[in-house]
């Protein structure tokens, strides 16, 4: 027991470069802007987040998070102030303002603002509100401003910094995205995701007027492809924890069993990431689900260690510079 606890604490003591967390922070900051700006542009701040008395479409008195209650209840002044604070914190998060402590405060303010607003009207919220809340809490736990930030520039004159950060927040980010995919896969108990429903889920989901960007009857001519993607999506989601097992086994010292050797033989992340990126880009292109794809994709760089990201970035730059003009 003592040995296990000691091993656990050794994991929590690991340090690494800050690139993965920094990319996560930047994309999460952009996702916050993407959350608020379209709401303002559509004139939805009052309609969705205020009571009928102030122009809302439904009674909302007494709704919202603990913060709304603590600040005296829903008023236009409060809601607009929260939106303003949310926008500023989103921008500050994107730029990486505040440093080790200040950056966490920025993330916490962004989190509480979004939590307060998204809990006002339970009918007009999406899963992305919850996922973005989770992202922001993880940015409170981890130092996302160590590099690729205004703070790094202030400290050392450059955008990049070799300052190390705790590795465990990145592990929690990985745990979060694994949970999202595994849970959504387990929730898909509809027969239409499975053979007895003919793998027709994606076809019918894309026909739903609620989410599609345009009328999508043309997919009837691609029906076999939608069946294949239905099966692959479900398998990909429920098996996503394999990526976590793969990462765990790779860092574990000592000999591996047959299954362990099989799971670490290839870099399992590559096929899962390729499929995931393609799926989210397809969702973004065909469906209106707000910043969901951006928020989710922010998690992907954290599947890689910072030095892997640095190597990948250097390789990409070298390839681009070799391209004939």
């Amino acid at each position, binding site marked *: 027991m*003592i040995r296990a606890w000691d091993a656990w604490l050794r994991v929590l003591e*690991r340090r690494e470069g800050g690139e993965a967390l920094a990319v996560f922070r930047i994309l999460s900051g952009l996702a916050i802007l993407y959350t608020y700006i379209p709401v303002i542009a559509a004139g939805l701040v009052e309609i969705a987040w205020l009571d009928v008395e102030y122009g809302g479409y439904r009674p909302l008195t007494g709704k919202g998070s603990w913060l709304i209650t603590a600040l005296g209840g829903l008023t236009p002044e409060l809601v607009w102030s929260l939106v303003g604070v949310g926008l500023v914190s989103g921008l500050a998060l994107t730029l990486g303002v505040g440093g080790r402590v200040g950056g966490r405060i920025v993330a916490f303010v962004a989190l509480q603002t979004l939590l307060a607003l998204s809990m006002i009207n339970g009918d007009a919220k999406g899963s992305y509100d919850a996922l973005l809340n989770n992202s922001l809490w993880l940015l409170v736990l981890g130092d996302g401003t160590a590099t690729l930030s205004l703070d790094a520039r202030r400290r050392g004159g450059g955008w990049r910094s070799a300052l*190390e950060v705790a590795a465990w927040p990145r592990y929690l980010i990985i745990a979060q995205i694994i949970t*999202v995919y595994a849970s959504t896969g387990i929730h898909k108990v509809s027969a239409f995701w499975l053979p*007895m429903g003919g793998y027709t889920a994606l076809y019918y989901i894309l026909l739903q007027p609620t989410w599609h960007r345009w009328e999508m009857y043309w997919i009837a001519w691609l029906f076999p492809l939608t069946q294949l993607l239905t099966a692959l999506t479900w398998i990909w989601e429920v098996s996503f924890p394999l990526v976590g097992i793969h990462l765990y086994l790779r*860092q574990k010292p000592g000999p591996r069993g047959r299954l362990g050797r099989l799971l670490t033989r290839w870099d399992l992340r590559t096929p899962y990431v390729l499929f995931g990126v393609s799926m989210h880009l397809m969702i973004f292109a065909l469906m209106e689900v707000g910043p969901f794809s951006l928020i989710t994709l922010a998690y992907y760089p954290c599947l890689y260690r910072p030095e892997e990201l640095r190597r990948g970035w250097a390789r990409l730059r070298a390839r681009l510079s070799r391209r004939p003009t």
Partner: protein
Amino acid sequence: MTSASDGEGGGERVARARAPRRRPLTIHLLGIFVIYHLAALVLQALPDPGVGLKRSAWQEPTVQQEFRVWAGFFSRFGREVTVDELQRRLWEIAQAVTSTRKALVRPFAPYVDYIGMRQPWRMFVAPHRFPTSLVIDVREGDGPWRTIFVERSNEHTWRRAIFDHDRMRAALFRYGWPEYNGTYRDLGRFIARKAAADFPEATQVRVRMLKRRSPTPEEVRAGQIPEGDYRQELVIALEGFRR
């Protein structure tokens, strides 16, 4: 991006000492907190059947179709399972799972309420085979109804910016289900307020949901799109909304 031989801890400064050593209290507290976080994460993400545990929702054709397919599937294993029996069993199981889950997540309630550690990942759990679309019409006196808005239409686009936003799409999706009838009527009154302002000559507004079975691929290719029918009709006089 990297070869499989690169370990996750390959480039990290890992504490080398293998024997347990004395550490500050903070790292022990961190160890406990991270376990609490992971437990909250996993338990909150467990399916919560309580969300859809409403008799009215189970009577919807989309849900009934699911029961039929599953009853047919279970009947292949030697004993016929009827839709009624399947529903009764599932209702009992769902109630048991809901109460167990509720007990499991109780210790994490403050973490959820104050930090937002919710894990509601019921995304696209099932295709809605009988989806609804919001349709709004106005008329002057006893004149004909004039359609001003149809969800996703490029022809009837009144106040489209509001209804096209994903937050309102989420709300409209919910209002097609019977358990949201009260809020649907609130939405109707909101639409009446806006229509009264935008159409000074109009005397009434009609708010309806067009419920239409999604066509099979064969039907689409044959050009046979189901007509659907209108439900949840609200006819609201605009007079009172102009004061």
